């Protein structure tokens, strides 16, 4: 490798994602839902190079007791398990699920979801702020799943969330970033890490989020629902890395007219 590319690799290695004092190796975070089985889940997560995985909090199935547990495949020592409060539509439920998640003894991180609508799965931002306030006071590390409203994002940071997770588009919709302008405003206004979460469809969506300056991207359906999830996971790994590198490299401006690349001098 040339000296310049050595330096570039070192810079990228120093480009660490740090949230609430914890360092994460990968800027691609993945959900664990909707896979064929645990084997496929683990293969996809590893193909993605992800070290943060979200999990849902649910009753243990006591009538159908297969010996397998998700954490048998995803060692909490190797992966950061990020419990979420998926399926919670009230503050009370979100608090209950978050507290149960912490009581399981694996993490005090929580991806806080307080859902406001069944069809869009958009967050109930008022409930989200209320629940976040309470959980922050109880010592949780609250990563809120929010919408693309910069005012809400700022509020969440002000009440103590060490990062915010604005949606790109409805969960599972595959629409990519619906409101790049709001996302860019959030990235300018908010001084904590921003993790774009929900709605990513394919690799270019993830690359774009990173090019705007997002600190990480979280996705589930984009990988698990792809025709070949393992291949898509790998694509996403490159996309997030490429987008981040492009962002740090500093792109050229957009111009209406051409600027020739070759000099006129020396023309015949």
């Amino acid at each position: 490798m040339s000296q310049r590319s050595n330096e570039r690799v070192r810079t990228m290695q120093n480009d660490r994602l740090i949230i609430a004092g914890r360092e994460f190796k990968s800027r691609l975070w993945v959900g664990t839902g909707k896979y064929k089985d645990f084997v496929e889940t683990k293969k996809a997560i590893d193909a993605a190079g992800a070290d943060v995985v979200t999990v849902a909090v649910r009753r243990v199935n006591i009538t159908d007791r297969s010996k397998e547990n998700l954490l048998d495949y995803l060692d909490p020592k190797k992966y950061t398990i990020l419990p979420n409060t998926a399926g919670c539509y009230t503050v009370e439920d979100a608090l209950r699920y978050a507290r149960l998640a912490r009581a399981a003894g694996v993490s005090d991180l929580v991806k806080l979801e307080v859902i406001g609508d069944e069809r869009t799965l958009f967050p109930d931002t008022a409930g989200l702020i209320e629940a976040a306030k309470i959980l922050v006071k109880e010592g949780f590390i609250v990563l809120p799943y929010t919408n693309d409203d910069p005012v809400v994002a700022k509020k969440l940071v002000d009440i103590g969330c060490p990062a915010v997770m604005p949606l790109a588009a409805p969960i599972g919709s595959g629409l990519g970033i619906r409101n790049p302008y709001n996302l860019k405003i959030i990235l300018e206004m908010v001084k904590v890490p921003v993790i774009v979460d929900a709605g990513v469809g394919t690799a270019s969506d993830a690359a774009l989020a990173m090019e705007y300056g997002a600190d990480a991207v979280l996705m589930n359906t984009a990988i698990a629902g792809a025709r070949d999830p393992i291949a898509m996971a790998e694509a996403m790994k490159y996309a997030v890395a490429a987008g981040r590198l492009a962002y740090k490299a500093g792109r050229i401006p957009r111009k209406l007219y051409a600027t020739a690349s070759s000099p006129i001098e020396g023309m015949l």
Partner: protein
Amino acid sequence: MQIQVNGEGRTASAGVTIADLLRELDIRPDRVAVEVNTEILDRQEFDRRGLREGDRVEIISFIGGGRKN
């Protein structure tokens, strides 16, 4: 006595502890959270907390999920 576990009725011997119940169900105590009558228990209480008639127990763990199913 009759108790509820994860929403289902269940017969249990009087004075059975959470730890006993988890053993009976073949559930590892180190990756679950347990609620009794909506009170979340500390792990250290599992072998101290005896169950009573009508208690509602919830045994919670993590599953694959990035979205509501």
